[in-house]
């Protein structure tokens, strides 16, 4: 039985790097709930897996913890006209297996990542073509003017053409899958290389000595071991007993206790994910009111009543123990197009809510089933239970249906819901992403997660324009207008940004920089 997934690119490189694992003493052990899905950078679009890719693979542009962009494999870039960009590539860069990095690799990577079966195709969907001008310059043409191209570059992973062709691994096998070569083996230009991956057990990484950024390396790790631990309490125990040096997420209720521990510190900060509630705008008859021929949610006053019924501060203080930032917008600060002044949440005003309900003709409310996940977002089930209490207080007869995420997402995708909770992190860190996926239905490829099928003609039109306006000023104006209409419409009710909570051993770890997307990038870890 062959050891699953031997990850070093080739035996040759093994001889080169004299350092073997056990000689070092600086080992960084960290853990989260689930294992990575695979190593094919053009597949497995999921949080922890994407961060692992950024440890191993180079991209033209890298996103820093403060969300600003920094040169990676491309040293400079400029836009020659509305749809053409010229990127100058870094010279003297080698892949983990020693192959040199050239423009051909960029072209090959574009062709591979834009395949139909690639999970990451969305990030470069606006690119028309990529061709090499010479060994170290590349021209990228977009189908239409794309203001968010640079923002999407950190999701465009560069693989080694020779290595892939040698192992005939061009084709991206759809769905998470290890049996193909690309998903089991990694050969990037990133600061770390994979030594071993035993699925659901551990991933072992070591620094890549010939990394182009070796001299300004910010981390001092000799070996990193990533082990998934599903059960929260067990993961907390593993941190307390010192078997692991860092872990996330820390259950909110355990934060005070961990902060009390002398050799453990808890890093907290807002996550880019926005938690919100959505209505069924589409059906003529609400699922829970058979034969009534009415859908109360079609009336904006009912939606506004729901918005006023929610005590966001109460949820923040009690359910989230202060670790959440109530929001009024569908995007979090730091996302391109965020408008600070519009971020004022709907005020908590139960009386106003009951007045609105009466005005809309439902003085004593109506029955509705509230669909929630119970193992996806932080304290999701507790939030929904608290919500039920608040809605019942204004007369709505709520039946809570809290289910595991696979069952919950199933209902969401099938639009089989009247009132639901969902969370969204814009993949491209740009405001157009939620507009396209959550707040519109008409444009091609839009409304994937718009379960309530909210659609406002003006917002639809604005969304299309936003995707094509290159000028930043004008684009922000359009975004602002779209969000204003959506807010007036109460298309969705944004709740809050949930907080990240990372538990780190103070006695072994000097510092870990926390980024608003919830995963540890080994570059920013320094051990004692």
């Amino acid at each position: 039985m062959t050891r699953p997934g031997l990850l070093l690119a080739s035996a040759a490189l093994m001889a080169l790097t004299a350092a073997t694992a056990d000689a070092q003493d600086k080992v960084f052990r960290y853990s989260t709930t689930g294992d990575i899905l695979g190593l094919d950078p053009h597949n497995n679009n999921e949080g922890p897996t994407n961060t692992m890719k950024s440890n191993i693979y180079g991209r033209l542009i890298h996103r820093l913890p403060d969300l600003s962009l920094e040169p990676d494999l491309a040293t400079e870039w400029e836009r020659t006209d509305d749809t053409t960009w010229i990127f100058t590539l870094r010279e003297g860069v080698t892949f983990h297996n020693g192959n040199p990095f050239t423009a051909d690799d960029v072209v090959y990577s574009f062709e591979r990542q834009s395949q139909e079966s690639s999970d990451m195709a969305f990030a470069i969907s606006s690119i028309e073509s990529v061709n090499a001008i010479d060994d170290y310059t590349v021209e990228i043409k977009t189908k239409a003017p794309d203001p968010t191209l640079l923002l999407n570059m950190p999701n465009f992973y560069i693989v080694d053409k020779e290595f892939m062709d040698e192992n005939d691994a061009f084709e991206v096998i759809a769905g998470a899958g290890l049996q193909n070569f690309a998903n089991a083996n990694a050969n990037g230009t990133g600061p770390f290389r994979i030594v071993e991956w035993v699925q659901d057990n551990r991933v072992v990484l070591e620094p890549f000595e010939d990394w182009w950024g070796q001299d300004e390396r910010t981390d001092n790790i000799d070996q990193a071991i990533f082990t998934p631990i599903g059960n929260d309490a067990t993961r907390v125990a593993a941190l307390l007993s010192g078997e692991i040096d860092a872990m996330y997420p820390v259950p909110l209720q355990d934060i005070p206790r961990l902060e009390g521990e002398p050799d453990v510190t808890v890093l907290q900060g807002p996550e880019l994910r926005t938690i919100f509630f959505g209505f069924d705008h589409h059906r003529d008859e609400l699922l829970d009111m058979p034969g009534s021929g009415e859908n109360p949610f079609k009336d904006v006053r009912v939606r506004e009543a729901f918005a006023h019924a929610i005590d966001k501060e109460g949820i923040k203080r009690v359910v989230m123990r202060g670790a959440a930032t109530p929001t009024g917008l569908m995007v979090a600060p730091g996302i391109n197009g965020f408008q600070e002044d519009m971020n004022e949440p709907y005020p908590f005003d139960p009386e106003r809510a009951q007045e609105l309900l009466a005005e809309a003709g439902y003085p004593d409310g109506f029955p509705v089933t509230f669909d929630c996940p119970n193992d996806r977002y932080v304290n999701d089930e507790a939030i929904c239970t608290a919500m039920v209490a608040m809605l019942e207080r204004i007369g709505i007869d709520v039946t809570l249906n809290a289910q595991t995420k696979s069952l919950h997402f199933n209902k969401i995708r099938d639009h089989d819901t009247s009132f639901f909770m969902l969370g969204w992190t814009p993949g491209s860190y740009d405001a157009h992403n939620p507009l396209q996926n959550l707040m519109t239905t008409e444009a091609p490829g839009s409304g994937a997660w718009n379960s309530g099928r909210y659609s406002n003609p003006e917002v639809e039109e604005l969304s299309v324009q936003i995707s094509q306006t290159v000028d930043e000023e004008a684009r922000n104006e359009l975004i602002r207008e779209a969000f204003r209409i959506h807010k007036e419409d109460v298309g969705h009710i944004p709740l809050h940004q949930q907080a990240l909570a990372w538990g780190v051993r103070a006695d072994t770890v000097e510092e870990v920089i926390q980024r608003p997307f919830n995963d540890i990038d080994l570059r920013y870890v320094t051990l004692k």
Partner: protein
Amino acid sequence: MQNIETTVELPAAPSFGARLSGNIKAFLDGDVFYSFKRSPVTIIAFVVTMILFFCAIFAPWVAPYDTYNIAGLNLMDAFRPPAWVAGGDATFLLGTDDQGRDVLSAIIFGLRISLMVGFLGVLIAAVVGTILGLISGYFGGWIDALIMRIADVQLTFPAILIALMIDGIAGAVLGRAAHAESKLAVLVIAIAASLWVNFARTVRGSTLVEKNKEYVQAARVIGIHPILIMYRHVLPNVMGPVLVIATLSLAIAIITEATLSFLGVGVPVTNPSLGTLIRIGNDFLFSGEWWMTIFPGVALVILVLAVNLLGDWLRDALNPKLR
């Protein structure tokens, strides 16, 4: 042949009342009740079980707060420690949980669901299991093979999958509203489905042994109907192990209910059962709010302890050979 005149004076049939009081009097000074009086442990267990049942049935009147009236919950009351702990509040004797529910009332209401689902589930499982066990043990042949193979098929599926399937079917068959109502029924069926096999196999094992005993063969020889044989002869000898499993299965049933509820198949989390209270509280156990899981846990332990001790006494008392 001299016919023997037997004029026997039949006593007038006693009225129902007399017969009933007669039975009660006979029971009271019978040996079963005597062994009950003698062991203090059993008395305590009996009293505790009755109290728990009483609370479950009359929950709305017994519990200080109506935790199922969701609107009444006030989020600001959440995480209050028990009254005697610093920061505790006398109105919430055992403190409050993450939704501001008074833990004591939540336990009483939770008890109602857990007891109902637990007892019904175990009862159905016991009846179905024992009958099938008797039949398969007694008749043997292809019936036995069929029943045992059904058991194998059913044993394969963890309760979780069974519940999901039954809930799915219920969802497809019943309308949306009826489906919500059917949650409890789905739970009971799922739990019964996952427990009956224990009873069936044990009863079958014992029936196999009893079947070879002469008294059963004798009964068979004189043509007593097999069902009567099983009922009157084999069943009493099998009650011992069945009672053991029944009382133990109650604990499993209550915990299974919590797992199923977590999967969204059981009772909604807005009116939590005892098992669900423990599950939710479990996350807070070591983060300072220990009372959220400890008190429901203690309640469950007391319930299971009382029921099992009662079960032990009943089994020993009912078994003629053991007295």
